[in-house]
């Protein structure tokens, strides 16, 4: 209960204004495509140079939480996830918006972000030592299996059919191999200097989601005077929040998966939302509703990506090993103030550390309140005429892509992928599995290569990848995931066959009748 001693430090006027400012800025930055949480925190770090350590960290922490939630705003309203973590939110969130339930979807998003966020921070406060030990156990082989587990869900995420999803996933994995391989240092598929550093995940995300959306909006604006894309919809905040809180199953699936993925260093918080979405769908009573505007989809995805924030700091604060790309940037923010991760953080620098962690708890509250207020007033976005909207999204897409690493190549890659995706979407491809492939491809490949090198030096590659409790657990999960997909696919087929058989029987019956009649 040591953390309670430092709670007072959060409630100074200066710290509170930093929290509010950071949250508001984070929500807005997060909503802009390209300004992912990683980017936003990295941009903020130079500003904290001249601040007191606690103040600087409070600002960074508030930004981190708020940007993760803010990415959902654009995911729901315009189907462009602000960051990879919000891909799963777009799947059902934007469908809800299409049904005139945008405000409701936003309320779900912030309420579940709040619940997930609080759970994540509580885990951080109480379970840091045991979780830190667990985090270290995840070596190359375990991470490889996690990536494979992620790949098994590609087929079922946001696609019309499993085959289409798998094909998109493979395209994504293939795209991820472009550029200099980080392990071997060798260039691959670099036919053009713009491809030198490969396809950046955020550039791909923006291209695949935003550009088709821009082109769709232009299409729409031609044929109708219907200025508004759709209504924000009337919705009662209190009703939505209360409904959300009763969806205990989706909330707990999301939070638990978020916590687990957050602790695992290198798994990337980006997949927390997708894995949670997939599980919520598999465990739901009516999985058919997912992808068509199911509130549970939004709730699971958003509680997961915010539940990931706290635990991703566990390995960072104790072992100097970040649990997510954003936490990696936060490491720089800590070092600049002479705060070196490790046991001394909780002894010598206890005041700063606990003030920071406590401020994360308070930041969740601000995120909820400011988020709900913003949601109520984001209606005007829906009323913007389609052609203005298209232009705005396009500008933001170009700006956001360039800002990732000040690279013009990224902009070209983004635009190219976007145009391909536009035509691809006409054929029934969807962007989510492609992005998932781009995220998971390198995790699987790099860790496989590392594991192979280590395995060769010990008792064989196969043994190394299949021994140990964690490896076996992961392999079991992979088998279960594939098995479940096959089972539900088979069930679907049976159902289809039954329907077909029924039809045929009817047909043949009538034929028989005809035949008998003919014989007579």
């Amino acid at each position, binding site marked *: 209960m040591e953390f309670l001693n430092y709670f007072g430090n959060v409630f100074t006027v200066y710290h509170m204004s930093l929290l509010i400012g950071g949250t508001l800025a984070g929500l807005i930055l997060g909503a802009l495509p390209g300004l992912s949480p990683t980017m936003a925190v*990295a941009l903020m*770090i130079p500003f904290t140079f001249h601040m007191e350590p606690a103040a600087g960290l409070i600002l960074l922490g508030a930004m981190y939480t708020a940007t993760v939630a803010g990415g959902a705003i654009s995911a729901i309203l315009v189907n462009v996830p602000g960051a990879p973590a919000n891909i799963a939110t777009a799947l059902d969130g934007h469908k809800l918006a299409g049904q005139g339930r945008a405000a409701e979807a936003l309320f779900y998003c912030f309420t579940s972000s709040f619940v997930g966020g609080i759970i994540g921070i509580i885990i951080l406060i109480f379970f840091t030592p045991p979780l830190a030990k667990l985090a270290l156990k995840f070596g190359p082989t375990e991470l490889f299996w996690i990536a494979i587990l992620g790949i098994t869900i590609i087929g079922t995420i946001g696609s019309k059919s499993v085959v289409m999803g798998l094909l998109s996933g493979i395209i994504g994995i293939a795209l991820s191999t472009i550029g200099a391989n980080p*392990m071997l240092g060798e260039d691959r598929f670099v036919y053009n200097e713009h491809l030198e550093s490969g396809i950046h995940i955020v550039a791909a995300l923006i291209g695949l989601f935003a550009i088709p959306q821009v082109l769709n909006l232009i299409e729409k604006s031609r044929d109708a005077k219907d200025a508004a894309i759709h209504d924000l919809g009337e919705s009662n905040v209190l009703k939505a929040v209360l409904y959300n809180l009763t969806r205990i199953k989706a909330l707990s699936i999301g939070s638990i998966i978020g916590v687990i993925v957050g602790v695992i260093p290198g798994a990337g918080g980006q997949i927390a939302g997708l894995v949670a979405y997939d599980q919520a769908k598999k465990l739901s009573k009516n999985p058919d509703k997912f992808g068509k505007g199911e509130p549970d989809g939004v709730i699971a995805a958003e509680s997961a990506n915010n539940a990931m924030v706290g635990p991703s700091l566990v390995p960072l604060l104790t*072992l100097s*090993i970040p649990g997510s790309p954003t936490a990696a940037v936060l490491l*720089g923010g800590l*070092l600049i103030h*002479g705060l070196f991760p490790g*046991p001394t953080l909780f002894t010598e620098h206890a005041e700063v550390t606990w003030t920071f962690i406590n401020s994360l708890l308070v930041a969740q509250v601000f995120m909820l309140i400011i988020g709900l207020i913003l949601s109520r007033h984001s209606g005007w976005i829906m009323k913007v005429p389609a052609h203005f909207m298209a232009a705005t999204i396009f500008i933001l897409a170009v700006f956001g892509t360039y800002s990732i690493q000040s690279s013009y190549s990224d902009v070209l890659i983004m635009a190219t992928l976007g145009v391909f995706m536009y035509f691809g979407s006409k054929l029934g491809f969807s962007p989510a599995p492609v992005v998932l492939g781009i995220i998971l491809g390198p995790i699987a490949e790099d860790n496989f290569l590392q594991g192979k090198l280590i395995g060769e030096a010990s008792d064989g590659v196969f043994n190394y990848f299949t021994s140990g409790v964690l490896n076996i657990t992961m392999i079991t999960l992979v088998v279960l995931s594939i098995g479940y997909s096959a089972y539900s696919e088979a069930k679907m087929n049976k159902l289809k066959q039954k329907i077909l058989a029924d039809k045929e029987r009817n047909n043949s019956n009538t034929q028989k009748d005809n035949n008998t009649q003919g014989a007579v």
Partner: protein
Amino acid sequence: MYQRTKTCQLTKMCQRIKVYQRTKKYQRKSKFTKLGIMLGTSLLTIAATTNSYAEGYPERPIGVMVAYNPGGATDFQARIATLASAKMKDDKPISIGQPIYVTNKPGAGGRKGWNWFADKAPKDGYMMAAYNVPHFIAQSIVYDTKYNINNLEPVGNWGADPAVLIVGKDSPFNTVADLVAFAKENPGKITVSGAGKFVGHHIAHLQLAKAAGIDIKYVPGKGGVGAMKLVKGGQVKAGFNNLSDAARASEDIKILAVADLERHSFLPDVPTLKESGIDVDNSSVNFRGLMVPKGTPQDVIDYLAKSVPVMFEDSKTIGKMKQTNSPVKIMSRDEVVAMWAERQTALSALLEGLK
């Protein structure tokens, strides 16, 4: 000097056009031609002013390109090292006299940013870059890069972070000799992690293997942090990592040796590799500093070579560097030029068979 004469010529041309504009011949021309001449003049004027840097340099903020991600060690050290660039004393600049901003162009282990820098960066002194030695020199030897020590001009060095040989806390190895003895009995069984291929850690690994005559396997991690994780988690038997990061993590690891010529003040009790019987030089030490592309006017280079080391010496900068555990080593342009040349020879020999 060349730039100055070019500027003079341009200015003279502008003046001549202005004189011509006052003549009657000009007045008779059509509006369209007049517009053309005016546009031409203004373009020339702009050219004349932008080329006149040599005289008033620096008159606007200067950029520093970092070829790694924001928040990484090179990035935050570059930001700290350039903090004092605009500091004034009695209305006179102490060092450069203009603010410095950092811009990141990460990718392909730094190659993306440095390729851009050598190829496309403005050569007017308004864009510097942070270098990492031996990284960029080793890359220019092994890969087909647009940069090498001949088309880059250093202006000053701020830091030197040696590689250290580390093992997990529970490792049976307590000295370099233990590790070498085990490796001799079990060739190919020792895995050594490092931040990537052809960075200081990899160089240190190659040197250790060569000098001790042992067969050890290099496992490139995802940056220094990823490599450290493999050691702490016990997935590899040993690793090379940054001295500054290892010194901080002394609770979870054992540091066996420093890959430098002398012991380091952060770790006075840790012997050098040489003391441990491994005959290697300091080729793997990670030097960080600032450079400009070749083709930058000589007087700009001279100005920066004089002011940049002064900027690094600022007491607040040194204080911040200490606070963040970043080992400082300030070197002048001449010293860096010599160090680069030395590395080029040593690394060419070491990487001979690896191309």
